[in-house]
């Protein structure tokens, strides 16, 4: 095998899978500390320095209102990750509750819930989110709500699968025989399994969510001014594309770096950290239409 440093890095990554966490942790740190590390207030306009190139005072230059690009990019990390976390937590919360409930109670209620989940999943998440924004109108919280409503179904479907497989485990039977109540069994034995799998899957989804948020802002349906958001910065820069491509390239690179970091993490999870059952899951998730008719797939998968 070629022993270039490039490969060494790759092999290192293979040996210590937790290394892929580093870029994500760096971005999370930037997000947390951004108010203290931005050199300028990211929203203050200074008309005397509009559209200046990089300099000692402004490392990445200024935008058309004389705002410091570096400060805006740094604050953008916080905006993106904050919105992403809210959606992820809300979608997980709703998804786990509905999915586990469906799996636990079974019967007609389960059938109704799984039908709703499947219908939501029959549309790509972003299309569904756009439709909801079309109904409730644009804005920051509209965007959060729309994305949550589009994202929960994935987690619900997964939670239900885990619940069903766990219910068939002998130790649950044992607990039941020993007289444990439903709630006790659920919170004590089943929920931890659900969470451990769903959270791993969700972290792999974070990159897609950051992209979705930026896309909605790019389309003018997300964050309000003056909040520095990368998708919005990029679309604002588009009219200066010919003379000042920097205004487009910088937020684009920032956005791509964050998404790459999360996707790297997601890929690592999918290939190495995640139990085999869930990997099979990921592929089969694509065959959504078929799953509508074949509930058995879920059992088949867990039995692998």
């Amino acid at each position, binding site marked *: 095998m070629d022993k270039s440093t490039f490969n060494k890095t790759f092999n290192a990554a293979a040996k210590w899978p937790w290394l892929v966490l580093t870029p994500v942790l760096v971005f999370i740190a930037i997000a947390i500390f951004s108010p203290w590390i931005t050199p300028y207030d990211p*929203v*203050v*306009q200074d*008309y005397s320095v*509009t559209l200046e190139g990089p300099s000692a005072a402004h490392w990445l230059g200024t935008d*058309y*209102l004389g705002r410091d690009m570096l400060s805006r990019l740094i604050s953008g990390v916080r905006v993106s990750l904050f919105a992403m976390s809210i959606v992820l937590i809300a979608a997980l919360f709703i998804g786990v509750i509905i999915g586990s409930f469906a799996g636990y109670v079974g019967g007609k209620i389960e059938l109704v819930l799984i039908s709703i989940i499947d219908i939501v999943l029959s549309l790509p998440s972003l299309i569904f989110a756009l439709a909801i924004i079309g109904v409730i*109108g*644009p*804005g920051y919280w509209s965007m959060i709500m729309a994305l949550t409503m589009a994202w929960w179904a994935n987690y619900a479907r997964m939670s239900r699968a885990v619940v069903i497989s766990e219910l068939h485990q002998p130790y649950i039977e044992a607990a039941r025989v020993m007289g444990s109540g439903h709630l006790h069994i659920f919170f004590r034995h089943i929920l931890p399994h659900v969470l451990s799998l769903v959270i791993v899957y969700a972290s792999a989804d974070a990159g897609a969510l950051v992209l979705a948020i930026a896309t909605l802002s790019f389309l*003018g349906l997300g964050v*309000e*001014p*003056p909040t520095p958001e990368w998708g919005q910065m990029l679309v*604002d820069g588009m*009219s*200066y594309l*010919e*003379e000042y491509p920097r205004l487009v390239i910088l937020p684009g690179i920032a956005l791509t770096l964050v998404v790459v970091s999360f996707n790297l993490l997601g890929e690592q999870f999918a290939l190495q950290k995640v139990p085999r059952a869930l990997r099979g899951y990921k592929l089969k998730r694509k065959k959504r239409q078929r799953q509508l008719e074949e509930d058995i797939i879920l059992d088949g998968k867990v039995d692998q």
Partner: protein
Amino acid sequence: MINTNRRVFIGGTTALSLAALFPRGLIAAENGKLTIAISQETGDLDLLQNVSSLSAYSVVFDALIHYASDGSLVPALAESWTEASDGKSISFKLRKGVTFSDGEPFNGETAVWNLKRWMGQPDFSWIGISDAMKNITIDGTHEITIHLKQPVPAGLLEMTIVRPVRFLSPKAVDASGKQIAPIGTGPWVVTSYDNTKTSLVRNENYWGEKPDFNELELKVVPDELARSNGLRSGDLDVIGGEWVAPLSPRRARSMQKNDDVTVISAPGTASILLAFSPKSSMVSEQAVREAISLSLDRNAIVKILFEGFADATANVFPGNIPAGGKTRTVTPRDVNAAKGKMSSAGWSESGGSWSKGGKTLEIELLVSEESLPGSRRLAEMIQGQLAETGIKVAISSVDNATIHDRRPSFEYDMTFMVTYGAPYDPHGTLANLFLSDVDSGPDGKIYAHTDLDPILRTALETGGAARDAKMQEVYDWLDNNAAVCPIVAPQRLWAYSSNVSKFVLSATDYDMPTNGVKLGS
């Protein structure tokens, strides 16, 4: 899956029937084609529907009177007109020998038939002269009189607007009276239209000065950058115009460096205002409104957002609007004076915001990029400027439908409004967007106050020499109460290629610039 054939078929037959409607001999010898960009397809140019794009009507249809760029009225299908001394009737002497492009004669009968299609109809009650119309009489083959219930001082001006006032061939309607083809008396005749272009040929029987070239193509180019590229590459001859194919100030500035392209700018006839909600508790105090106006850096807005192609203004109407009022000087930005206004009105500043009696000042600025392109950036800039005075602004950017829901119910503190511009002003904006007891529809109002109503009504009802003074009283009231905050009047922006040897701006941006244009270098 979707039945499209029916529609395609109808589209096809429309084009065919249009071609059949004018005599073959009309297509004269080849002597040049002018291609003008339009941002959206012209549509069927139905004079009674609010659908087709406004700018294309004037090349096909004429009105009795036309609006000239200096705000004066010039004869068109009417050679002369007389207003009765009591203002309750207007007589028109129609131009003789005019025919529609399908050969139908234009006379008193066809004129009255046209006028009765809209005058007195409820859909057109927003036009004063339509609302006040009592009846119309034919006094001779080429003489008509419109009789009114009460005088309409702006009535003649209203006869110059785009639609529905223009004249259609009586043969161009179906049994139910719906327009089936755009047949007018204007300099150009539509030969075909679809969603990519509208093609026209010169009307060889046109009553006025015939165009210098025999073909006109209105090419649909929705993207602004694509239009400027088209102009540079020679695919397009003319681009620009607020209602035709807007040219952004930024693009205009960068195109000035190009030798093959000429950029033309002229003072605009509409202004952008910051409008205050009469129901808002945040901006109910005059001191707050004055402080907002003082905090604005209008010159920076002109320089940054309009690249210099706008004029900072303190007037509701630009100076080229007739009876638009005396020009006021624009007060330069003065943050300290603005803070002074706030303090003397009892507001106190702490931690970068103002409060009074436990109420913290936070103003909602309602914008919609769809209803006013560029308004989000303008809002962002104003938000930054007001922040320096300590006035907090929260921007709500909403969609087109929501802004039209929230404006009529005054669910905002501030919003941007744009005056109608020539030839609709000043009466159009004043009558529709300022009277408290008039239904302004989904556009809402710029400002309304019961004290203003009588002053404004008097001004709108006053004709003749006293009109200017009465109008000035309205502007003075608005100014003394800081009722509106004018920001800028964007300039008219056009650009043309070297294929055009002479370019003449049209009277308003609602018209296509074709009259007087010459091709070839």
